């Protein structure tokens, strides 16, 4: 490791399978990544690439059945949280790992006040009494930029706008000072100006609180602005991973290259869910035996159809810690 620090979160060889009537769906295949303290890891990939399922597998948020987290380790502060009891895992959720979901309109419970919903994790994890929890809830609402916080505690979610609700979701996720914040497309459902405000807020909170963040998005433009490192997912696998500058400067995977071409030129215009790449995402019916991108890849050759490429380091450094790619094709050999 470059600076000798321990990752807060270290995911190794995670594999999640859904058992459905039509057979198994291999949604996450041997995904490994880590997160340094205070770091922001961007995760990109088109719809169905397994971003959400990966993150929800980490903390046991997938209903089982049908989900089955089969293999892998999720080390949080050195302890494998896939092995701990459900009760211990529950004490990790919301306390050490906070979650923000995509749709703020439906992610809050409509029949409870916002205050009630912020207070719940505080009382469950930090053992605060009602008055303490309320004081902390006011603090949190102020932290995420909701004016008149004390009175707003008594409001119901429907009395808030979408952007305000997402701020509330962030307040809930940060309530217990988590080490890791996982934000699953937190701005996709919001309009562009609100989106920018939320991104600014997260940047600011990151400086104030210093938690590590996983930021899932379709929008490489957002990633360029806030991420330290980027992980590109495709077909339930990590296909490329690099510090943000390297990824934009020297994309190695044909899929990453295609993604980069879809970034809109005029800033502020959101891209249409990456439909610009020809072809369909793969059907994940079995454990992969070939490169999942082969059917849509302009550079595919015989080996791509016979063998699923492993992640290999580009230049110096270990896989996962520098720049790595899971591709048989070598752009340097052909590009020249």
């Amino acid at each position, binding site marked *: 490791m470059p600076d000798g620090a321990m990752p807060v979160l270290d995911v190794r060889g995670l594999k999640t399978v859904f058992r459905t009537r039509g057979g198994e769906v291999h949604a996450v295949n041997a995904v490994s990544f880590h997160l340094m303290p205070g770091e922001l890891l961007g995760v990109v990939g088109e719809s169905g690439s397994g971003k959400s399922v990966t993150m929800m597998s980490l*903390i046991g*948020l997938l209903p089982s059945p049908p989900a089955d987290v089969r293999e892998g380790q999720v080390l949080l502060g050195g302890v494998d949280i896939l092995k701990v009891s459900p009760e211990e895992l*529950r*004490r*990790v*959720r*919301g*306390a050490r790992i*906070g*979650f923000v*979901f995509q*749709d703020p309109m*439906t*992610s*809050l*419970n*409509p*029949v*409870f006040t916002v205050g009630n919903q912020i207070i*719940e*994790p505080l009382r*469950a*994890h930090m053992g605060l009494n009602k008055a303490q929890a309320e004081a902390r809830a006011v603090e949190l609402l102020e932290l995420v930029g909701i004016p008149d916080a004390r009175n707003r505690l008594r409001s*119901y979610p*429907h009395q808030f706008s979408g952007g305000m609700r997402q701020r509330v*979701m962030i307040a*809930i*996720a940060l309530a217990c000072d988590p080490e890791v914040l996982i934000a699953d497309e937190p701005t996709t459902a919001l309009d562009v100006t609100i989106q920018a405000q939320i991104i600014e807020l997260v940047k600011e909170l990151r400086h104030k609180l210093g938690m590590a963040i996983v930021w899932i998005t379709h929008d490489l433009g957002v990633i360029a602005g806030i991420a330290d490192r980027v992980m590109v997912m495709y077909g339930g696998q990590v296909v490329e991973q690099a510090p943000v500058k390297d990824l934009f400067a020297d994309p190695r995977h044909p899929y990453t290259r295609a993604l980069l071409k879809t970034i809109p030129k005029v800033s502020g215009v959101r891209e249409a869910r990456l439909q610009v790449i020809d072809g369909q995402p793969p059907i994940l019916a079995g454990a992969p035996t070939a490169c999942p991108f082969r059917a849509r890849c302009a550079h595919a050759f015989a080996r791509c159809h016979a063998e699923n490429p492993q992640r290999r380091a580009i230049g110096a450094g270990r896989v996962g810690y520098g720049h790595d790619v899971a591709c048989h094709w070598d752009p340097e050999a052909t590009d020249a």
Partner: protein
Amino acid sequence: MLTFTIRRLLLAIPTLLFISLIIFLLLDMAPGSPMSQIPLTVPLEVRLKMIEALGANDPIFFRYINWLHKFFVIEPLHVFDGLFGTTFAGDSLRELSWQSRSPVADVIAQRIPQTLTVIGMSYLLGILIALPIGIYSAYRQYSWFDQLGTFISMIGFSVPTFFTGVLLIVVFSVKLHWFPSIYDTTLKVTDWASFGKQVKQMTMPVAVLGLYNAAQISRYMRSSMLENLTQDYVRTARAKGLSERVVVLKHVLRNSLIPVVTVIALGIPTIFGGAIITEQVFKVNGLGQLLITAIYANDLPMVQTLTFIFAVLIVLFNLVADILYGILDPRIRYD
């Protein structure tokens, strides 16, 4: 909410007046006369006098107003006097049953306790059984518990109560002699022995109706829970690290109860009206049985009054359901 309630109550007045007019006119067209129960030996002059005294020859509009006046003013005053020993009503003319010659309100008041204990108890029991079953069935969808629950509730509301009632009587009264087949209204609960008797005679009718009610309500509860269990806010609650108990019994249940409570409130009038068959089967002399016998005896005032009471209850509990909905769901604002 208050203005909404007041507005709805005011709106209920024309609605009820309209319903009362329809009921009055429809039943007035029915064949039958107040004299049909009077022996033929009574001379014609006397009969005509009696009809005169009953006001049965007055113009229909006049009789309607008269009836309304009795229903809303005189009879309630008499009932009030009876309860508190006052004399507000004085000796104003009462609405009499053609069959028993006693005031309609008094007869109804006598019948209400039986209906409330037996039918009300079965409704309450049905709810108490149905809610936990519905909740657990949904939480463990397709488990053996859920499958069994589905099967039993299918039976519960597809087999009519007159069939289950008679079946229970045949098995438990006729063959096993465990429970009496006839409900004894004269039984007074004074000690443990008579209390035991009361419980025994209530068991079968309550079981029959309770099964029917539980079957229906548990289905509502189950589907409402299922709908809510997959909502995003449930995932949020889990992501906050709340225990399953809190997630299901607080977050999911609170949302799921909204439509179920409405259905329960709307069903309350059926306690009074819908149990007619069961009361007949078990010979419980409650309101349902009263209505049936009144219909057979051409007892027009009794039928009119009972029908109108059911109508009032239905309108009233519709309002109650709406108000409960507004209380339970903060997104609904009526004002």
